[in-house]
């Protein structure tokens, strides 16, 4: 059996890995999973790119939480991305905390964790790391790269940086740049982490992380993944296990209790420094920036077909951002499909039950 393929894989690729910021990592470790079999011609590979706080466990149980894969609605038997037909790859991003090189990794040059000595990474660096993984796996060309949110940013970057290696791009609920508002929310999260005394300039012990700060960061971010409509429907002003407000600062309201729970469960599976680095990578993301702000010029050399999907209630990466991408791709002469789907679930809609999205992706992949 080829040890490169299967669940819970990890590979350390020796040699310098140069980053956009100018720094160099002495080696690159990538944690990943593959599902299905690469066919003889190597034409059935699909790369799944994950969002900010997700990981490589896209279609298998998470080792820490025991929960099923985060995108089993899209990937699995009888789903649009069926491992029966496709060879599916999903890797933990560079800077992540589920096994790929990141701030929790040991710097081989001195045997100490990188922590805040880890260089600031970019979405481009994440894509470059994935390209190194594909080389290792013997995958020359991707039939498709699929991603939502930050995964969509990687998917778009793939098409721009490796035009000949990507046949199709599915970019869902995403943007070609981080807006001022996007950056602002991330900054709140980072400041919450860094304000936690346990953060200690990033030099915390693994068993004493800045959990309070990270939980607050998650709470603030989580609000941006939902919609006002969705929150109202789910919680309204309903109280948590009580008949009247307490005239105190307990979680009187269900929505408070829910957010606190989201924050607490997040710190069980995520590293605070990783959160700083990955949010920074997203904030730096602007595909048009190297082209004088002209997004169409950024897409000038693309060879892929594109499918963009947005959701009506997503205010984190609203439809206008997808339209901006579509317009630029059109001007660049690329083949692009785009649909805005109705959903009350905000940005998270792409991770939830979305039969229309599945129908669109199935058609796009099989065409």
């Amino acid at each position, binding site marked *: 059996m080829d040890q490169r393929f299967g669940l819970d894989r990890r590979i350390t690729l020796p040699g310098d890995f140069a980053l956009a910021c100018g720094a160099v990592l002495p080696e690159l470790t990538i944690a990943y999973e593959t599902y299905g079999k690469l066919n003889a011609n190597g034409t059935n590979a699909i790369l799944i790119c994950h969002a900010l706080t997700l990981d490589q466990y896209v279609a298998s149980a998470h080792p820490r939480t025991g929960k099923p894969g985060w995108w089993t609605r899209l990937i699995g038997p009888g789903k649009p991305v069926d491992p029966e037909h496709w060879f599916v790859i999903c890797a933990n991003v560079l800077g992540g905390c589920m096994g790929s090189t990141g701030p929790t990794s040991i710097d081989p040059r001195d045997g100490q964790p990188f922590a805040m000595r880890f260089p600031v990474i970019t979405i481009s660096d994440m894509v470059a790391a994935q390209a190194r993984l594909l080389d290792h796996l013997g995958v020359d060309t991707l039939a498709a790269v699929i991603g939502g949110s930050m995964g969509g940013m990687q998917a778009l970057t793939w098409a721009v940086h490796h035009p000949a290696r990507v046949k199709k791009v599915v970019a869902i609920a995403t943007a070609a740049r981080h807006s001022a508002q996007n950056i602002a929310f991330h900054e709140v999260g980072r400041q919450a982490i860094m304000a936690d005394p346990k953060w200690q300039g990033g030099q915390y012990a693994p068993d004493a992380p800045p959990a309070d700060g990270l939980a607050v960061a998650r709470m603030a971010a989580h609000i941006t993944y939902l919609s006002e409509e969705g929150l109202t429907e789910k919680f309204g002003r309903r109280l948590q296990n009580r008949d009247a407000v307490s005239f105190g600062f307990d979680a009187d309201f269900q929505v408070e209790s829910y957010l606190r729970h989201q924050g607490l469960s997040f710190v069980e599976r995520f590293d605070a420094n990783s959160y700083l680095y990955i949010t920074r990578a997203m904030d730096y993301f602007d595909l048009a920036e190297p082209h004088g702000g002209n997004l169409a010029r950024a897409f000038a050399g693309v060879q892929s*077909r594109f*499918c963009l999907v947005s959701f009506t209630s997503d205010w984190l990466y609203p439809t206008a951002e997808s*339209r901006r991408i*579509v*317009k630029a791709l*059109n*001007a660049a*002469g690329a*083949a*692009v*499909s*785009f*649909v*805005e*789907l*109705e959903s009350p679930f905000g940005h998270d809609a792409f991770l939830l039950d979305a039969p*229309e999205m599945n*129908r*669109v992706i*199935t*058609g*796009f992949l*099989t*065409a």
Partner: protein
Amino acid sequence: MTPVPLRADLAAVADAVPQGAHVLDIGCGDGQLLAWLRDTKGVEGRGLELDAANVASAVARGLAVMQGDADTDLADYPDAAFDVVILSNTLQAMQRPAAVLDQLVRIGRRAIVSFPNFGHWRVRISLALGGRMPVTRSLPVSWHETPNIHFCTIADFEALAAERGLTIERRAALHSGKPAPLWPNLLADTGVFVLSR
């Protein structure tokens, strides 16, 4: 796989599309025409469609279709980006039909436009004798619910084309899907025009 035969007015439009052309279909619905053109004429097609469910169906057919509004989004396309731009049975639903026509011949070297003829005798009788807005086979929705806000007759369309300086390269008049060459403005329920600048 044998392609499903096209609706008569779409067949008339498809007839005017050359083999292998690069085509934009505006108001492409669920992509029936584009899929037919791809499968039988080797056309590389793109579509623009307002309705999300239609877009999903078209993309599910493997077509490159974007959700958008012809009244506002056509300005984003570069000049002469397509050999042929199709506007089938959609002109009458546009906010600014004349501006859309200008866009068609800017984006495409040729435009094919089909529309229901409001000069058809059934329409005239409905208005003249019944005193009511017509509800016919080709115009099945009553006036207050129809998306069609800018009806015209074949004669009106020809006048507009002349006013915008457009060349009419071909014209076809249809009644119940069959050619209606005689007195088209009275006897045809559909007009199909091939235009260029």
